[in-house]
């Protein structure tokens, strides 16, 4: 059952669902860019499958966000008719896809995070979110296995693959802190047992990620003085605008287009 949500909780939940939905939507779009460009056919299909899962999560989460907002916006309205400053995804997912090693490193860092988060959200007091999380969690298990195996293949592969994966990890590392930020929005939902405490999930993520990095003969990147932040408040890198220009072109140019 949907508990009755009072004003502040409802508002925080709307923003939170956009954050989760936007992460999935933007990462799904980045992955879909590999379609037709994968290193070989089976991997091309694998990346398209992962993209499809994320688009499915995005659709469910944004549909729910629209219901919570109560202004009649659908998942499509939220995906295609918001501008950059109204998106709440982390910077990690909006960075250009880079080379294959970069995509794999990002998939690994993000899917371990998402797998832990959705595992925790399965017990959210907000039932509709718990249901979506249970479904997504099953699918993310495949994602973690897929990217973890690639981490080993590339890390323990050739000198070139090892070098490229290490380079990608070094760049991406400073974007991971944003995944675990706790702000007032999250605190409202933590107090209502709707969302988990991200600060408590961080040590689990760190252990899992670092042990794979080390087993794959890679080095844990050094902490950088710079740390990406702002995505959860609508502040983004220049890359998101370019992505949206492509993703939103059709519905903006032809607002009522139908298949």
């Amino acid at each position, binding site marked *: 059952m949907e508990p009755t949500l009072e004003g502040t909780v409802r508002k925080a939940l709307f923003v939170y669902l956009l954050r989760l939905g936007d992460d999935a939507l933007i990462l799904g779009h980045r992955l879909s860019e590999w379609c037709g460009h994968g290193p070989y056919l089976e991997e091309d299909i694998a990346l398209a499958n992962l993209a499809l899962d994320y688009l*499915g*999560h995005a659709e469910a989460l944004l549909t729910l966000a629209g219901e919570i907002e109560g202004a009649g916006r659908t998942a499509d309205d939220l995906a295609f008719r918001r501008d950059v400053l109204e998106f709440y995804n982390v910077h990690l997912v909006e960075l250009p896809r880079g080379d294959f090693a970069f995509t794999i490193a990002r998939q690994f860092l993000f899917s371990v995070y998402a797998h832990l988060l959705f595992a925790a959200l399965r017990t959210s007091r907000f039932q509709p979110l718990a*249901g979506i999380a*249970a*479904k997504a969690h099953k699918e993310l298990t*495949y994602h973690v296995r897929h990217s973890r195996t690639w981490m080993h293949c590339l890390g323990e592969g050739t000198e070139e693959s090892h070098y490229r994966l290490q380079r990608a990890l070094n760049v991406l590392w400073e974007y991971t802190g944003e995944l675990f930020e706790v702000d007032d929005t999250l605190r409202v939902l933590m107090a209502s047992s709707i969302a988990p405490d991200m600060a408590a999930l961080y040590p689990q993520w760190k252990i899992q990620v670092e042990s794979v990095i080390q087993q794959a003969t890679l080095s844990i990147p050094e902490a950088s003085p710079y740390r990406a932040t702002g995505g959860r408040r609508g502040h983004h890198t220049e890359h998101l605008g370019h992505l949206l220009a492509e993703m939103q072109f059709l519905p903006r140019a032809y607002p009522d287009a139908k298949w």
Partner: protein
Amino acid sequence: MLSGNAMTTAEVLNVLAEVQDPEIPVLNIVELGIVRHVHLEGDTVQVEITPTYSGCPAIQAIEEAIVRILQQQGFQQVIVRKVFQEPWTTDWMTEEARNKLRAYGIAPPPAHAATAPDLIPLPVFSSVQTLPIPCPFCNSEQTRQISAFGATACKALFFCEACRQPFEYFKAT
């Protein structure tokens, strides 16, 4: 004409059993286990369905087919709701559905997903490639996994060494 529709829930389910899965046209949506609840109220019927995978692109076609077929039965208003509570599992597939899949050339998932072998993430680089998934054509267990990801989110690609046929396996979940 009576006010309201005189159909029972069981009769509505029989009608819904005529809706085929667009990706696997030998299976209908009832035996696949994606129809979760039917609520009847006069001329209105509400059908709850759950997707096999979150991003299953067939779900929209299925929703439209449900609306069409129930309107033909005289329901004025057909509401299709997508629900996620209790994620779909292949355990809900009927035995008949599994047999139909096999006859269609798709290896069905085991009756209990919990007992299914884990797929190999990247078989190209793995020394272990064999999994005990029997070939739907010749029933041999001399099969190997080509890829954990196939043409749809619910299927993986396999190859049978005995009859030299590639085939699809409906992933246990």
